[in-house]
Structures are given as structure tokens and as C-alpha cells.
């Protein structure tokens, strides 16, 4: 693996390789444990009682579990897409048009990141209850439970996307866009053909991170979610307090497999498109150098 490296055998290098492998073991030890225990024949997840595929059969046959997973995926896709679009626009604007408004906007974004999730969750619930009309339970447009989750998750995600995209744009040369403007390209075309391709890696990172955060969000979800659109983490949180059944681990393993496969697919497409995930994550550095 260390092909092309000058001194693969010296002490520091061996130390770093060992460290890297230990961290991977640390990261995966509980995941592997959960995957192994997802084949537990026993009634309780944590007490091993022999190998069985039954938990998988039961997990697939449980409509409540399946619907909570589906709710989570819808909530994560919706809020991540929403955050990626509006966060990208705002991030570009904040980087390209610095000034009083950009400063105010960035202060708000920072405040979003600093506010403890529990405060956000309670504030949102109180607010959702007061709001009616297009944001109320009787609206004609969208599923009310999903809408609450979208907005609830989109707030933090949007803040994250804004910061990532802004960091990326700040590091970019504006001359290309200026050249296009000199050639009388209209603003929309300039954006679509020049700016967007340049910031796209940052948008993808923002989207992926938002998706993961939403898929795992427990506190805000448990407050704002409405019966009938209980997302997966809230379902697990409920189950954790009672008898923890192996089916939860089975469903989780299935989700893990599916997400890894889709991640691999995305990676494949991106690699063909010329991007690489290391380039993608560069935007995460939190600022230009």
C-alpha cells in the first residue's frame, strides 16, 4: 500500500501504520459486534444465544420498523437536498459579496452551530405548534410529519453547507467568472457553467454530511416527529429503553449494507467524473489558506 513512499520501514512509519490500523479497529469494533449480534437467535440483542437468520426475517416482516426506516430515508434525502441547494446559494453569495449582510448571515450560521440541539428541538416544537396555514397539520401540500423533520434537520445542515461552500468559493479565483461576464454570458449561464462545476465537490460533501446527520438525528427528531412518521433513530431510542431485540441490529445491518453500496456507487460516478473524495473533503478544512 505504501508504494512510492521513500522509507516504508523506518520506526516512525511503522508506528503510524500501526496507529492507523488500531484506529480502524476502534472504529469498527462496535460495528462488527452489532453485525455479528444481528444473527442472534435469542430474545435479547445483547445476550448471545446461537446463530439464526430469524431476526432478519422478523425485521423484514415488521411494518413499523420498515416504515420508520423509510421515513428516515425520506427525511434525510429531503432535508439534505434542500440544505444543499439553499446552502450552496447562500455560501456562494456570502463569499462573493462580503459586507454587512454577509457578516450578519454568518453570525446567524455560527449561532446555529453553537445552540445545543435540545434547545433547538424545544424551540422548534413550540413554534410548529403555533404555526398554522401552509406549515400546519392541515396543509394540502406535504405530509405534515415529514415536513417537520425536513425543516428540523435542514437548519443545522444548511449551516454546515453554507460554511463548506463558502470555504471552497473563498479559495477560488474569480477571474473565470469575470471573463465569462466580459464575454456577455448571462448570470444564470455563468453560474451553471462556471461557478457550479467549481463548487460542486463542496456541494456533494455538504449533501453527504447533511444526509448522514439527518439519518442519525435523535434529539430534534424525537421532539418534532409526529406519530406515524417516527424516524429510525427515534424508533431505536424507544426500543433501547425496553427489551432490545436482535431485529434492530438486523435492520441496521441491512441499512449499513445499502448505504455502503450507494456510497460506493456515488464514489464510482465521482471518480469517473474526475473528482475524488479527498478533493471533496478539502472544502471541510473550514477556511482557505
Amino acid at each position, binding site marked *: 500500500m505504501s508504494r512510492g513512499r521513500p522509507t516504508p520501514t523506518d520506526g516512525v512509519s511503522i508506528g503510524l501504520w500501526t496507529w492507523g490500523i488500531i484506529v480502524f479497529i476502534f472504529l469498527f469494533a462496535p460495528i462488527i459486534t452489532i453485525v455479528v449480534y444481528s444473527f442472534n437467535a435469542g430474545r435479547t440483542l445483547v445476550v448471545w444465544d446461537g446463530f439464526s437468520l430469524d431476526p432478519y426475517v422478523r425485521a423484514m416482516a415488521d411494518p413499523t420498523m420498515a416504515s420508520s426506516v423509510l421515513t428516515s430515508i425520506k427525511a434525510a434525502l429531503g432535508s439534505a437536498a434542500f440544505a444543499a441547494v439553499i446552502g450552496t446559494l447562500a455560501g456562494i453569495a456570502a463569499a462573493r459579496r462580503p459586507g454587512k449582510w454577509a457578516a450578519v448571515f454568518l453570525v446567524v450560521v455560527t449561532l446555529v452551530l453553537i445552540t445545543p440541539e435540545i434547545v433547538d428541538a424545544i424551540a422548534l416544537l413550540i413554534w410548529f405548534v403555533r404555526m398554522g396555514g401552509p406549515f400546519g397539520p392541515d396543509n394540502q401540500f406535504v405530509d405534515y410529519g415529514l415536513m417537520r423533520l425536513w425543516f428540523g434537520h435542514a437548519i443545522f445542515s444548511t449551516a454546515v453547507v453554507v460554511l463548506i461552500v463558502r470555504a471552497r468559493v473563498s479559495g477560488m479565483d474569480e477571474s473565470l467568472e469575470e471573463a465569462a461576464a466580459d464575454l456577455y454570458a448571462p448570470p444564470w449561464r455563468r453560474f451553471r457553467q462556471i461557478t457550479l462545476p467549481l463548487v460542486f465537490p463542496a456541494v456533494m460533501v455538504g449533501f453527504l454530511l447533511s444526509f448522514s446527520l439527518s439519518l442519525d438525528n435523535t434529539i430534534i427528531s424525537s421532539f418534532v*416527529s409526529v*406519530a406515524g412518521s417516527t424516524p429510525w433513530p427515534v424508533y431505536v431510542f424507544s426500543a433501547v429503553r425496553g427489551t432490545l431485540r436482535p431485529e434492530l441490529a438486523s435492520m441496521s445491518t441491512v441499512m449499513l449494507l445499502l448505504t455502503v453500496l450507494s456510497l460506493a456507487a456515488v464514489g464510482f460516478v465521482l471518480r469517473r467524473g474526475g473528482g475524488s473524495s479527498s478533493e471533496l473533503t478539502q472544502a471541510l478544512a473550514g477556511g482557505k489558506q
Partner: protein
Amino acid sequence: MNSKDTSIPAIRVLAPTATAMRLSRRGFLGGMGIAATGALLSACAATPGTSVAPAAAAAPVQLGTELNFFNWASYDDPATVKSYTTKTGVNIRLDVYNSNEEAIAKLGAAAGTGGYDIFVPTGVYIPQIAQAGLLEKLDHSKLPNLAKVDPAFLNQAWDKDNTYSVCKDWGSTGFLYDTKVIKRDLKTWSDFVDAMQNEASGKTSIMDSPNYLAGLYAWRTGMDWTSTDAGFLDDVEKFILNDVAPHINAYESYPGAALAQGKSALMMCWNGDARQGLMAVHASDPERYRWVLGAPTTELWMDNWTILKGAKHLDAAYSWINYVLDPVVSYKELQFTGYNTGIAGLREKAKADKLPLSEMIFFTDQQVATFKSGALNSGTDRLVQILTKAKAASAK
């Protein structure tokens, strides 16, 4: 429809108000005795659903496809839920809570937008919840199986004539201990505190719920654990902060269900939760954990089925409650949750079946005489403060 005319007067006859009012007294068991008649016992043999049939046939209702629960964790057998879904096509969705306070706070904040149909509060909280306008008045004609409930558990002081609620379960509080760590016999709450301060120091869990702090203090001496007297609450605070908090390793409301993880050696818990835990570890190590019912006094609680105001699935809610009141279904529920469901005749059936650990479900006359109901009152605020202080003290 006709069941209303027959069942309600029957209840009145079987349970004179004076007996039923006193939740924690002999009427409880007296009623149990009366109810254990051959007629009711034979009802246990009937298949679930047969008793529903007449009402359903008289007025066929569309149950819809969903029903949303706001309930305690592990409080219904997944098998029961599944068979109900198979039978009716109604899918049940569940969200859970840790304490009555938490549930009421969430329902209050959501102001009816939570979308829940069924809620299972503890009896003494019902007057306030009803007063806050959160509960639907029950239509008894839709609950023919109400006749199957032991009259001792109907018409309670906090909900006369079962206007808002029907008994789901009743039970008590005690503790579990690990005999590998505590090698002596524990019998009372004083023993609990003593073991907690000695062999089980740093390995003891208590409930994550404010009023149990007052309970632990008061039950040891038989004091009133619902007192709002400032002096009493001061004493509770001193006791909890100095004598209890330093020895606590977790504030957990369902330690029994997680017993197998061996996180604590001494755990305050409800009888059914303890039984679920013991059943799970029974196969591997039956002697290791021991259950003790709190003494000299301890808690009495009764959890109740209620329907929330604004419920979107009213018919399904009634059909579910009626379904679980069926003695056959109820007996399965009892085996799973480890709580007495208050349906007449089940104690006898359990005895005949030699149901394991049934002494944790059915209590004797003398035990019930030591049970005391809790309350939601002005002391709660102060107890929440004490709980947060205790948590800070335990972390050191």
C-alpha cells in the same frame, strides 16, 4: 351496543363504590376473589375476538390502517400487536416515554399535534391530564370487554365511572440485586440503602423520575411519599444528596430489561420490568439475580388505557383497547410484561399453569396493604430540582 346496558350495572353490583375507591386497600383483593367465578374463568378459554364479534357485527366500522401509541417501553407483547394487525389490518406505531412527567410535558407542548391516539398514563395523573383537556371521554358501548375487568380495578377514585380510562396494568416497585456482589439477604428499602452504601456502592441504579426520590426516602419508614411539606422535601434532598447520590452509577427507569448487560448490581425497578429481565437471564444463570418487593411500604400504581383528544383513529383505538381486555389476549400480555392486567380470573389461570415467577405478578393481601399511590402535585418542581442536583452529585 346492547352491552352497555348489561355491563355497566353489572360492574356497579360487583364493585360497590366504597371498595373500588380505595385503590390500595383490601377491596382490591376482595374484588379479585369475587371475580374469580366459574363464568369468568370460562371466558378465558374463549378465543380472542369472539367477544368482539357481536358488537362488530351489529355496527361494522372501518378501522383504518393505523393506530398510534404513546406508551411505556416494552409494554405490549410484539406478538399481541402482530396478531391484532393480522386480524384487523391496523398497523400500530409506538413512541415511548420514561415517566409520566415526560409524557405529559411532550403532549402538552405538542398541543394535540403529536398525532397520538392512545396514551397510557398512571392513574393519579389522570385528573390533571383530563382537566388540561387532553383526554377523550370513553364510549363504553364500544368496549364490551370492559365486563371482563375485575371490578376492583374499575371506578377508581381518580376516574369515577371510568370516564376517561380503563385499567391496563397495575404493579409496584422493588429492586433487583446481583447475588455475586451482594451476598446477604436484602428484604427492605433500608437494606437497599445499606447495600447501596456498601457492597453495591457505585453499582446501584435508581429510577430516572423525580417522585421516586421522595419514595425511596419515605418508603423506608412508611411515611407519606406524596407530601408537599417543605420540611419533608428538605429531608428528601438531604438524604438523596448525602446518602444516595454518591453511590449511584445510573439513573435508569428500565434497568430490568437491560439486566443481561450486567451494568449494575443493585437496581430499583418495577415488578414487571424486573420479571422481564429475570426471564431473559433465567436460562443461563437462574440464581444470580434476586427480586425484592419494596418494604415496609412501597409504591402502588395503575396504568390506564386512555384515548387522546383529537385522535384520528378513534374506532381503531376502541377496537384495540377492547381487544387487549379479552382474557386470552390479556393473559398473553401478562406473561410478556409481567404485570397484572386486572382482568378477572387470570391469577387462577396462572396458578393452574404454574406460570414462572408469578409471585412477581400477583401480590398477596398483606403485600398490597403496604402499597401507596403516588401523586402529581406541587412537590414535583422541587423533586425535579433535587433530581438534577443528585445527578450532578453522582457524577463526581
